[in-house]
Structures are given as structure tokens and as C-alpha cells.
């Protein structure tokens, strides 16, 4: 049963259609990410849900109530912004209390709710401080508490992590997810960072040029992208040119080897097409159970800790492969000739 429903939503600025026929059903308590490059319309969708932009057509309902024509201040929604947006003239406690105060919640109730919220984000001792006395990460946590204090029906997050530095970003992201799950609040999160979207979401909507290209769990989006855009935008891809040998059985020829692809091959017999393999689907050395082995020359080695990212030249093309670090096995040095194992079952079929 969907709690937040967006149907046939469109938005045009002048003659420029930035959101086209956008449909989405979000279950209660679900965490959904809108992922896409800048200018894809994800922020516009969020701002229409918040009530800052009026849709050109389409409707938005929350908990069965049509909110499309409702003003932002009548929607009972919580929101976190990219640039903190704390009120600089109010203390941390007053910022968190703001939503309750404008609703006319009595003082005692307000105060207990504020301290509950500040405990939730672990900043109870900062209650009397002003925003400028807090770090970016602390400010953003206060912004989360402020958004949650009036118990909103939906929480909207507009790239709340992108202004923070890498370490804080990861810890705050986990904190947001943890609090979201604890409160069971329906959440829409806008980001251009695919790693962020995948680590935090129940489902991801990948957007491109105003259209929702694919909706699915992070696992589905990553492993079974349905469009070339999604495949390219999410994660790294190595593409290989293959020739279809038997389209019904999903068999294609790569060099001298015959690969069996997962279901979904649509190209006809003898067609030239491309398949893609994630960096982790390529294995260094001869691995048992893999369908074929190709030769490559290592060009670059990036040691990243638990993972080693290698770039190798295979038949004139650069491919990227990830291997796990092993203390007893140093990575190959650039210039080494290596064998790379791969298998058709890991391939992503790029139709069209």
C-alpha cells in the first residue's frame, strides 16, 4: 500500500520541460533516493513534493490526501537542505523548536520534544549554542532534528551531505539512515552520489533528463540496469564487443570463446552487440569455473586498501578490474602481462 504517490508529474520552466511524466509509489517508512546527474530534474521533483514549485500537471498524494495544490506550510513535511539553512539568529534549541512554535504547541510540550530530538542526534549539550558555533556536520544534524521535531509525514533530503567533508559525510549518512529506520519515517533523498544512494536506500530512482529511467533496489540497479544510461551512471563498466551466436540460448562469441549470457538477450542471430562487465566480475589469473581467459597488460595499479583497482589494456581497450587485497600476494606491477578470467553470467546486456 503506497503512502506517498506521485503520478504523471510534469514541470516546465517556460518551454523547457524539466520533469516528464514522473511516477512513483513510496511505501510507508521507505527510504527512496532520487539519483541522477545535475540538471536531471531530481531536485525539481523534491521541490514539488515540498510545495516550493507548482507542478505543470500531475498529482502528489500523501497518506491518501491530495497535496498538489497545498501551500508548503500546510503539508506537514520535514526537509533538510544542502546549505544547512539553520536560522542563524536562533539557538540550536530554538531552531529545533521552530516548527512546534509556529504550530502553537505549548511551551512545556515543546521543550520536552526539543530535548528528545537533541538526544536523538546526540547534541543535547549544544542546545544553547548558535549555528555559527557548530561544525558543518553538527549543523546538519540540528537541521535533521529541526525537520523531525514536528513529526512530519514525509522527510525530504536535498543533498544534505554534499557540503560536508568525506569522513563526516559517511558517519552522518549512517546516522540519518539509523534514525530514519528507528522512526520509520517515509523519506525521499536527492543525491548525485551513487555510492551514497546505494548505501542508504531501500529503493533508488535513477533520473535522466527529467525521466525516471529505472526504479529498483540498489542491488537491482547495480546488477541489472535496464538502460544504457543507468548502467553507465551507476558504477564502472567495461564494455566488450561480441557477436550473437544463438539468441534463444543467450550465447555470444567473444574472441575465441563462447559465453552464455543471463536471460534478456534480444538481438538476433549474427548481430554485433556490446556486453558490459563490472570491475569485480573480471578476475586476475586463471579462475576455475570461468568461461574464458583473455590476455591483458597492466597499465596502472591503484592500491585503495581492501580493494586494488587495476587498469589493464585488453585488445587495445582499457579495462578496469577490482581485486581484493591479500597480504600474501602483492599486486602486479605496471607492464606485466596478465591473464583475466571472465564469465558470461556476470555480463550486463546493453540492448540498443
Amino acid at each position: 500500500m503506497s503512502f506517498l504517490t506521485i503520478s504523471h508529474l510534469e514541470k516546465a520552466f517556460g518551454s523547457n520541460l524539466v520533469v516528464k511524466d514522473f511516477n512513483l509509489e513510496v511505501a510507508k517508512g521507505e527510504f527512496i533516493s532520487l539519483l541522477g546527474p545535475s540538471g536531471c530534474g531530481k531536485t525539481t521533483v523534491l521541490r514539488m513534493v515540498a510545495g516550493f514549485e507548482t507542478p505543470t500537471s500531475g498529482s502528489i498524494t500523501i497518506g491518501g490526501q491530495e497535496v498538489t495544490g497545498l501551500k508548503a506550510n500546510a503539508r506537514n513535511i520535514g526537509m533538510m537542505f544542502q546549505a544547512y539553512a539553520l536560522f542563524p539568529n536562533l539557538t540550536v534549541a530554538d531552531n529545533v523548536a521552530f516548527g512546534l512554535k509556529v504550530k502553537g504547541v505549548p511551551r512545556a510540550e515543546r521543550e520536552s520534544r526539543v530535548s528528545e530530538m537533541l538526544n536523538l542526534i546526540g547534541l543535547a549539550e549544544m542546545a544553547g549554542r548558535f549555528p555559527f558555533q557548530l561544525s558543518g556536520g553538527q549543523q546538519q544534524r540540528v537541521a535533521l532534528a529541526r525537520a523531525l521535531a514536528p513529526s512530519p509525514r514525509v522527510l525530504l533530503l536535498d543533498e544534505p551531505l554534499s557540503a560536508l567533508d568525506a569522513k563526516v559525510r559517511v558517519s552522518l549518512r549512517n546516522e540519518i539512515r539509523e534514525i530514519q529506520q528507528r522512526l520509520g519515517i517515509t523519506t525521499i533523498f536527492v543525491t548525485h552520489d551513487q555510492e551514497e544512494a546505494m548505501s542508504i536506500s531501500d529503493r533508488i530512482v535513477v533520473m535522466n533528463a527529467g525521466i525516471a529511467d529505472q526504479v529498483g533496489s540498489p542491488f537491482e540497479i547495480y546488477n541489472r540496469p535496464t538502460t544504457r544510461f543507468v548502467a553507465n551512471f551507476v558504477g564502472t563498466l567495461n564494455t566488450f564487443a561480441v557477436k550473437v551466436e544463438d539468441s534463444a540460448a543467450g550465447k555470444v562469441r567473444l574472441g575465441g570463446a563462447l559465453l552464455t549470457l543471463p536471460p534478456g538477450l534480444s538481438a538476433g542471430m549474427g548481430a554485433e552487440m556490446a556486453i558490459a562487465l563490472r570491475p569485480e566480475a573480471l578476475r586476475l589469473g586463471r579462475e576455475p569455473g570461468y568461461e574464458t581467459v583473455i590476455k591483458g597488460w597492466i597499465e596502472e595499479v591503484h592500491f585503495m586498501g581492501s580493494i586494488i583497482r587495476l587498469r589493464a589494456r585488453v585488445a587495445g581497450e582499457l579495462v578496469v578490474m577490482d581485486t581484493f587485497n591479500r597480504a600474501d600476494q602483492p599486486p602486479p606491477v605496471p607492464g606485466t602481462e596478465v591473464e583475466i578470467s571472465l564469465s558470461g553470467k556476470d555480463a550486463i546486456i546493453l540492448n540498443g
Partner: protein
Amino acid sequence: MAKDTVRRARRRLPLEWLGILPFAIFAVLFLILPTMRIVIGAFQTADGSFTFQNMLDLNTPSIVNAYWTSIKLSLITAGLGCAIGFAMAAAVVFGGLPKGVRSPLLTFSGVASNFAGVPLAFAFIATLGPAGLITIWLRTEFGINLRGMGFNLLSFWGLVITYLFFQIPLMILIIIPALDGLKREWREAAAVLGATGAQYWRMVALPILFPSLLGTFALLFANAFGAVATAFALTGPQLNIVPIKLFAQIRGDVLGNPNLGFALAFGMIVITVIANTIYIVLRVRSERWLK
């Protein structure tokens, strides 16, 4: 070792301070000493001995009235200047007016805020004076007689209307950058938390703007309080406000007692100092949330 540091500091200090010596000398000669001379003179008799008599002499109906009129004039023109300037600035920044309006308004404000003094008085005489454009137009086209309705440009309210010509633009020049500093996210955050537009202005925007508003009000107050040229060119020496009275006193000693002039000027200093002290105290209190 501590002694050594002290000695070195003592030796180095004057050399470094020599760099601002010309500025300090200038400030002493042309700002501080002249002001001190007035403060001291206000408490001296003609032969130089100490007295409170000058202060007591200020307490005549004519002088008290002059101070009162001056304060009223300054408060009203500063208040109206702030209000109207704020409305115009807000109209340009938030009112959804075409973008092309803003830059000409800023340029014009720069010009108008400096178009004070004698020529400004001429402009208003030519417009609202007895033979002015609007006066005659209203009389011939609508049969409205401004004078008959009690309006006189050479009066208190005439002065208010004229002073606003430089007060409003000054407000616009100062407040537009401040309004630009209000982030869109603040308004949106307030809206999404359920606040109405009025609640946003009362609880967020105005408190943030308050220091700028206060500073501008103080500046406009001082601006009007010390202005001589506009009033003098408009009304001549007859309008009873402090700067005009002081002007007449300096020129011709109309008060008889030369030290009463010092007292008059000292009163002006006291009022601007009080105004600025109020300003500074309020500003410090309203700026706790600033860095």
C-alpha cells in the same frame, strides 16, 4: 627574561605606532581638539572660569523647542526613510519585479543620497513651493489649493518631505545588500516547518536584518540631525531647529552670550552620542548570534 621582553616591547611600540602618527595628528587637530574645545567652552564663562550657567541658559522655550523639533524631525525622517526605503528595496529584491529595475534603482539611489543641501531645496521649491509644478498643477487642474489646505513647504512637514529625498536612497543603498543576504533556504525551511510568511518575517528575517536596520536608522538620524544646508536654503534662518539656530549664532551671535553657542553645540554632541550609545547597546544585544 620577562624584563627583557617588556623592555623590547617598550622600545618597539613607539616605532610601530609612528606609522599612524600623521593620522593621529590629523585626528587630534581637526576632530578631537575642536570637539573638546566645544565641550570645555560649554562649561566656561566668557573669561574662562568654570560655570554651569550656559547649560541652564539652554532652558529657554525657544531653545528647548528647537531641540525638540530637531529630534522630532530626525526621528520622523529616519523612521519614514527606513520604512519607505525598506519597502522599495523589498519590492525590488522579493517582489518579483523585472530584473532590469534593480541596477537603475541602485545607481539612482547613489546619486539621490548625495543630492542633498542647497540644490535639493531648490528642486523642492520648484516643485512644491508657492509657484511649484505640483502646486500650480493641482490648483489649475483640480482646484486644490495646497496652501489653503495648510501645507507649506517652508514648515516642519515640508522639511520632512524634502529630507526624505536623501534619507530613502541611503536606506535603499544599505539595505539591499542586507536583503540579498537573506538566504532562500531560510524562507523555504520556515515554510516547510509550517510558518506563514508573517511568522517567517517576525521570527527569522527581521531579527536577522535588525542590526542593519538599526545601524541605518542611527545613520539617518545623525544625517538629519546635523543637516544645515537643505533647511537653510529652504527656509532661511527662521525655522527653529538646532543646526539653524547654531548657524545663526556662529554667524551673528544672535544669542548675545557667545558661550551659549558652545552649549548649543555641546547639546548636539550629547544627543548624537546618546543616539549612538543606544544604537551600539541595541546592536550588541541583537548580534549575539553573529561571529
